């Protein structure tokens, strides 16, 4: 993939830049670091377990890539010694020759088997040779926050002393850390004792204007976008096949039945706000349903859970009636808000179902525990019920109580299915393509993991060589890095 190669080049550049930036510091500092008097090092007595600890190699500091320019990262190759209860920590100093102190904020020390850089593709490239490297991220804003916290505390006690009329001394001043003058040292700690390692670490954080770790995401999004637009364009010229969705075919029948029986139709848009796609899909579908309803001269009622959804539904239904030339039949009172409280809403809707005995109930959008309450009451009143939801937990409840159910993405496809509009059909074709790509990726992952399992039998250190490394990288890409 292009993205992979670009990323690799980018990381190579970052490595190089970091090395080039930091090496003069290394060259200039050793005498300072070595010469710093022993009493300046924090613990006067270092326990033997720390003295015997073999220092990790290749300790380096550099700007944290792909961030907003507030953090730096320290990396090192794991030390061969692995005593219990020893953890990595970081000390800092303001100025290259100043004494090293613990960080002014709460810092979680890192265990010897934590924070491997191969687990963080967001910041580091994946490579088997980097498997033994660990990292610590230092957020420099934490220094400022710590300074502010300390200042507030001092100010408080200062004011208290003043209030009590005692001598308070000089007014406290907030300490300001100069990020360019912060130097770090990696160390190990146990039971409060610390041993620091050379070299002195220094790096300048840089604001990034593009998160390269999301490059593959962007590339995929862009490709998907192009595919969607391509299919939308193609759809204007030729017909796309879309498989039958029984639930949507039944919508017409249900509306017809309501007209015959002279009873209303209930249409629910789910419990989610207008910002979710399921609610948007439900209101889209409402437009089509309302048009049929206007044609059949039936009556539609839309009890809403959210006032914004209510306004959108009113507009959608009104527009549908106007388009069908029936503006006189539109009554905005039929699209109304009930409440924003789950079970109060259900109680109200169920009550209306029992009293008004609608001929058809449509449940589209996102539902929670109320799905069964709605479905079962509707069922008991003998209404035809069609549901469509992407809430996977609630699908079973709708299946047991409704006549037809649109499962998951069928809800999003519904408006395209009903309108048969080429533009909408094209985008559905595009998501089918994307699904095919996902299936291929899943199959590849499956094959790769089997291949690697077999490879480990023959070569436990480097299974399948460079090809195996690529396979591992491929699978790492799909791990969730949060």
């Amino acid at each position, binding site marked *: 993939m292009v993205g992979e190669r670009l990323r690799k080049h980018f990381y190579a550049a970052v490595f190089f830049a970091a090395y080039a930036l930091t090496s003069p510091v290394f060259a200039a500092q050793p005498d300072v670091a070595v010469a710093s008097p022993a009493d300046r090092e924090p613990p006067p007595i270092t326990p033997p377990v720390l003295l015997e600890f073999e220092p990790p190699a290749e300790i380096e500091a550099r700007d944290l890539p792909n961030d907003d320019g507030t953090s730096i990262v320290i990396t090192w190759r794991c030390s061969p010694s692995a005593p219990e209860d020893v953890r990595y920590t970081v000390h800092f100093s303001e100025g290259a020759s100043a004494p090293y102190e613990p960080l002014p904020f709460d810092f979680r020390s890192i265990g010897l088997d934590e924070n491997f850089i191969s687990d963080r593709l967001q910041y580091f490239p994946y490579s088997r040779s980097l498997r033994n490297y660990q990292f610590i991220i230092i957020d420099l804003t934490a220094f400022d926050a710590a300074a502010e916290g300390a200042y507030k505390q001092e100010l408080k006690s200062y004011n208290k002393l003043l209030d009590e009329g005692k001598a308070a001394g000089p007014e406290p001043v907030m300490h300001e850390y100069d990020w360019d003058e912060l130097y770090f040292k990696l160390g190990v700690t146990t039971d409060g004792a610390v041993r620091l390692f050379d070299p002195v670490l220094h790096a300048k954080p840089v604001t990034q204007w593009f998160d390269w770790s999301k490059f593959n995401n962007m590339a995929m999004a862009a490709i998907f976008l192009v595919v969607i637009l391509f299919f939308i364009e193609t759809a204007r010229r030729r017909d796309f096949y879309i498989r039958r969705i029984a639930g949507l075919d039944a919508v017409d029948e249900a509306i017809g039945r309501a007209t015959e029986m002279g009873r209303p139709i209930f249409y629910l848009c789910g419990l989610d706000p207008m910002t979710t796609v399921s609610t948007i899909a439900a209101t889209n579908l409402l437009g089509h349903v309302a048009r049929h309803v206007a044609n059949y001269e039936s009556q539609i009622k839309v009890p809403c859970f959210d006032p914004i959804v209510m306004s959108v539904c009113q507009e959608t239904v009104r527009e549908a009636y106007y388009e069908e030339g029936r503006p006189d039949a539109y009554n905005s009172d039929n699209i109304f808000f009930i409440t924003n409280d789950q079970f109060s809403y259900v109680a109200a809707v169920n009550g209306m179902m029992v009293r008004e005995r609608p001929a058809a109930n449509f449940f589209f959008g996102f539902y929670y525990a109320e799905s069964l309450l709605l479905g079962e009451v509707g069922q008991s009143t003998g209404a035809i019920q069609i549901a469509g939801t992407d809430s996977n937990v609630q699908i079973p409840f709708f299946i047991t109580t409704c006549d037809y159910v649109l499962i998951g*993405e069928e809800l999003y496809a519904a408006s395209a299915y009903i309108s048969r509009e080429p533009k909408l059909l094209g985008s559905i074709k595009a998501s089918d393509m994307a699904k095919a790509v996902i299936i291929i990726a899943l199959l590849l992952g499956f094959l790769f993991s089997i291949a690697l399992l077999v490879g480990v039998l023959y070569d436990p250190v480097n299974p399948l060589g460079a090809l195996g490394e690529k396979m591992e990288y491929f699978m790492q890409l799909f791990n969730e890095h949060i």
Partner: protein
Amino acid sequence: MTFLRRQLPVVIAFVLGMFVLIIFYIPAAPMQDIGDRLKVFVTIIGAFAMLLGINSILGQHITKIRKRRPGYGYSWVLILGFVTMMIAWIPWWSAPPADSAAYYPWGGLENSKGAFYWMFFWMMVPMQATMFSILAFYIASAAYRSFRAKTLEASVLLVAAVIVMLGRVPLGTSLTAWLPETGFWSSLRMEEMTSWLLNVPNAAGFRGIVLGVALGIIATSVRIIFGVEKTYMGGGD
């Protein structure tokens, strides 16, 4: 007028949609700040829309009372409940005690001796729990009605449902408690079978649906951002 109703919303949807999409890839602080500010608008619009909602529900019920439609007495109950709860919630400030940031003599959930608190816990909570517990009854009628071994698939579903139902209660797990806890036969214990059914076939099905849903969300979002789908704006085709 058509521009305001048709084109302008599409333009706004496109510009803001693309902007939010793009800043997802930009970690720099200024961009993220703008994104955060945009999200605040949703809350603000929601707060104002609530007025529309209140207008809608009160308007409906006031009309009902005025026209003396059947059951208009219940509309009185709704309006009374609405007004009472709202008044009880208003924080009635008095001089706050020394150690408190804000003090509500009888309003708000924060005051455990207040009227709102009392109505909330002894009226709202039991009523909501009642609605929720009706689920138990509906599950019974739904299960009785729909779990029929009509086909082979339905029979498999039925057996799985029975196992999971029993595997989730002590009565069910005690039925197979005599089986050994380790070894081959342990996998026939009710709780083991339940956990297998939930974790393997059930989880696999769920994930398939979730993948489809995620793609559908992307495709729908793209349709909205590019103005292909406008029905939700009341714009039709």
